[in-house]
């Protein structure tokens, strides 16, 4: 499903060239769950961005379903994202002016889904927020906001879901509940899940872990 071949990412700073990712190779099959772990600044989020087609590597290739997204232009990669990809972010990124229901419905409406509002309501009910559909993000707690974000991500039925520190902004108890919901939904929908985290327990729930250290892949293997 996703094939990563020898990707590197370098950026030029005032202090010289900085290597953020160095020769990463990876293959993720459909339905697999992969955790990318590592210390802060190890390149986890950069790798996630490149895998999702939000950013480009300096060298190497990334293929999704056999299509080399690094050879595409931004419009091509946007089309791939629209067809396959969903996101969950650490800071939720809900639009403050929209209600929970409208936040979930917006990407569906943009895809031209005719029953966007019903689908959105269904997913909000699935994440336990049926009673809060008309609330604005500022009226929801952090955990509730992330649940809306999960509903938004799954409502589009992506084949691959990228999650960037999905519980990084939540307390342990709420985080655990969000994780449960994430994995339950993932299993129900049969989505490929790639998440970035520095929580060992969360990483352990994934089928596989890729550990990065200073941009290098130091360990990649199946979890027990």
């Amino acid at each position, binding site marked *: 499903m996703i094939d990563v071949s020898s990707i590197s990412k370098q950026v030029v700073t005032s202090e010289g060239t900085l290597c953020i990712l160095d020769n990463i190779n990876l293959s993720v099959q459909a339905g697999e769950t992969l955790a990318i772990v590592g210390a802060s600044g190890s390149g986890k989020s950069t790798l996630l961005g490149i895998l999702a087609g*939000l950013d480009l590597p300096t060298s190497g290739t990334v293929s999704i379903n056999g299509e080399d997204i690094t050879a595409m232009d931004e*419009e091509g990669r*946007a089309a791939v994202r629209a067809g396959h990809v969903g*996101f969950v972010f650490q800071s939720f990124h809900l639009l403050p002016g929209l*209600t929970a229901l*409208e936040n979930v419905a917006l990407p569906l409406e943009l895809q031209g889904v005719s029953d966007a509002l019903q689908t959105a309501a269904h997913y909000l009910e699935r994440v336990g927020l049926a009673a809060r559909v008309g609330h604005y993000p500022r009226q929801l707690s952090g955990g509730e906001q992330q649940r809306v974000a999960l509903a938004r991500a799954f409502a589009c039925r992506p084949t691959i879901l990228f999650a960037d520190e999905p519980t990084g902004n939540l307390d342990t108890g709420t985080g655990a509940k969000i994780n449960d919901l994430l994995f339950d939904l993932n299993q129900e929908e049969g989505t490929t899940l790639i998440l970035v985290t520095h929580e060992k327990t969360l990483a352990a729930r994934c089928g596989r872990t890729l550990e990065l250290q200073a941009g290098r892949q130091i360990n990649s293997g199946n979890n027990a």
Partner: protein
Amino acid sequence: MLAFKMLLRSWRGGQLRLIFASLVLAVAVVTSVALLAERVERALIAESSSFLAADLVVRSSKPFNPQWLQRAAEEGVRTAQTVSFASMTYHGDEMHLASVKAVESSYPLRGAVKRSQTPFATDEADIELVTQGPARGELWVDSRLLPLLDIQLGDAIELGDGSFTVSQILIEEPDGGSSFSMFGARILMNWQDLDKAAVIQPGSRVNYRLLLADGDDFEGYVDWLKPQLSVHERLITPDEAQASIASTMDRGRRFLLLAGSIGVVLAGIALALASHHFANGQTLQVALLKSWGIAARRVRSLYLQQIVLLGVIGSVIGLVLGWAFHQLLISAVREWLPIALPMAGPRPWITGMATGMLCLAGFTLPALWHLPAQSPLAVLRRDTPINNLNAAARGSLGVLAVALLLFWYSNNLWLSLAILLGFALTAMASIAVGLLLLRLGKTYGHWMGSIWRLALSNLWRRKKPSLIQMVGFSGAIALLMIMVVVRTSLIDEWRWQLADDAPNHFLVNVAAHELDGVKQLIDQRELETAGWYSMVRGRITLLNNLPPADVVPEDHESLRRELNLSWTRDLPEGNKVIQGQWWDDSTPQNGALAPVSLEEDIAKELGLKLGDTIQFSVGGLTFDAVITSTRSLNWDNMTPNFYFLFPEGYLEEYPRTHMTSLYIPAEEKLLVNDLLRKYPTVQVIELDKIIDRIRTIVSQVTRGLEMMTLLILGCGIVVMFAAVSLSMQERLQESAILRTLGSSRRLILGVQWVEFSTLGLMAGLLAALGAEFAVAMLQRFMFSLPFNWHPWLWMVGPVAGGLLVGVLGVAYSRKAVTQPPLQVLNSL
């Protein structure tokens, strides 16, 4: 429609409030200003047309070609002929040389004739307005004819070969101002009675007028008529009808134009600030849309649709509000507004709509256009640079939109350029000086306690939004100051010109032996003259030793009639030497060539320049003069003016008469009768009715200006509000954090107060600079008013700026101390 749905949701979510409010108010203000300006302008035109009793007049010394009247009838152009002449009137043993005007039944085409059954009526209840002249056999006469001929209303008097009944008192004729009553009391008669009176004989000195108005193709008719006019016929426009009215109206119109243009620019600033705020709030949404795979083209199209929708909805609401607002203002001042305002055409509505759409497009689209091209990575990394157009390029596009609008509105390239350049200078000075002041504040603020230290370092830290706010504040304050200063100096100028005791009568042709008697009569009534001038009547016989007909191609009026020549040692008040030099004590008083100073326009028309010679003939004697200077005259101040002035010593030997101007109050009006009875050859030019009309018009124009000023002030407040809203979210967040950390209410509000009032104070200072510059330019080039400094601007600007912005800022940020910090943070 997804774009509409997104717009509706953004509205409900509160993101659109500022930009929507700015848009609606900008359109409302520009629409109401434009509506008011156009209606006041139309009223002024109607008023000046009534001054002519027509839209256009042809004046002639001969009867008009019947073809002209026939063609006018075919084209649907309304016409009325009048003829004025002097004629003796008799009743018993009494007689009077009256100034008669015969009018056709369609007279007047514009305005109305005021008549009464009460002599000397001033009470409106006694005065009747009619749009017709006297019936056949009737005369309408000036009140003072009654005592002069010793008659009552209803009596018959002799005029020429006929006897006519005096049926009405003529209080005022609309075009009374265009021909002075030089020969005594005015009599209005019916055109068809001319044959009966048989007073006009070949060679009679008469003045025919053809009044024209309306018609399907009025312009076309005038274009057809113009080439047929001979040297004896002249076209008179409302502006030419009365020079002082023309300049008052012209300045009034220019002011309305300036005020409207300032309204347009203020609307532009308000929308620029609101658009900046709106675009900044859209970065997350754009990044999310991109991460979901929405192509940049589609994102752009979605925003474009939303902007167009927002523009249309906001502008339509703005148009309705603008209409309501201008109606409200008109009804508020209706009792002071003696004339009915005509309806406006489509232009104000188009201007309002264009302001909304163009400003929104000019400021919002450049801010949003490049957002869709940004990397979707921004959803993961907040520090991803946003590749939108830089502020300068965005600003330039917006300014271009405002410039287009300004040019469309004013149709005056120089005015548009002056306002834009003035604003650009203020903006650049705001940025440069503002940066310097902010740095100084930050450096030295620590000496002034914690509130000042925190506030000044906040301003420095937020220097970009601070500078944008400062440009907004200073621009708005400067524009408001320009309005107020120009308005005040215009009104002062008019008041000065038309002081209550401004001369309203001219006495001409007072012979030397009559002078003491006339002076005595005036002194008895305790009236004061504007000084006595001697004059000699003479003709031009040679120009540079050639017959005038060989030099001046057209039959110039000054060559046909006798001219008034006068002499004076000092340059008369209101005169200005344009070329050459005014004489001094060293000028010889008996040289072979008399020095002469010419009015500049007559010098141009006769093709004369400094050093040219003119030969004058006075009572059969000739003398030569050389042009030593040209002068401009002030026609507005109602004092005697002369086209030809000589130094003392050259004209005294010729037979001379005397003239003066003086103020005769209404209750002393019978002085004119006494004068004319005792000195029948003295000519009295009565300007009192004209001056009253000028006063009425000036007071109407002044009211118009007051209303405009009020509206523009409202627009300025909108700009201030938009500017204050700019950094409010960040400020509230910081204040809530400070509050969480236990800071006192005093510290938080104190910091906000210092920040905003410092911004306002700096902006006020810069605004004073910009306004002083702009006012100097406008007074010099647009209003022809003398330049003077306005020290109060430098006081009021910073103080008012500091107070106003400070109060607005603190009022806006009070939420930070009145609500629990968590509630504030959650609401952001």
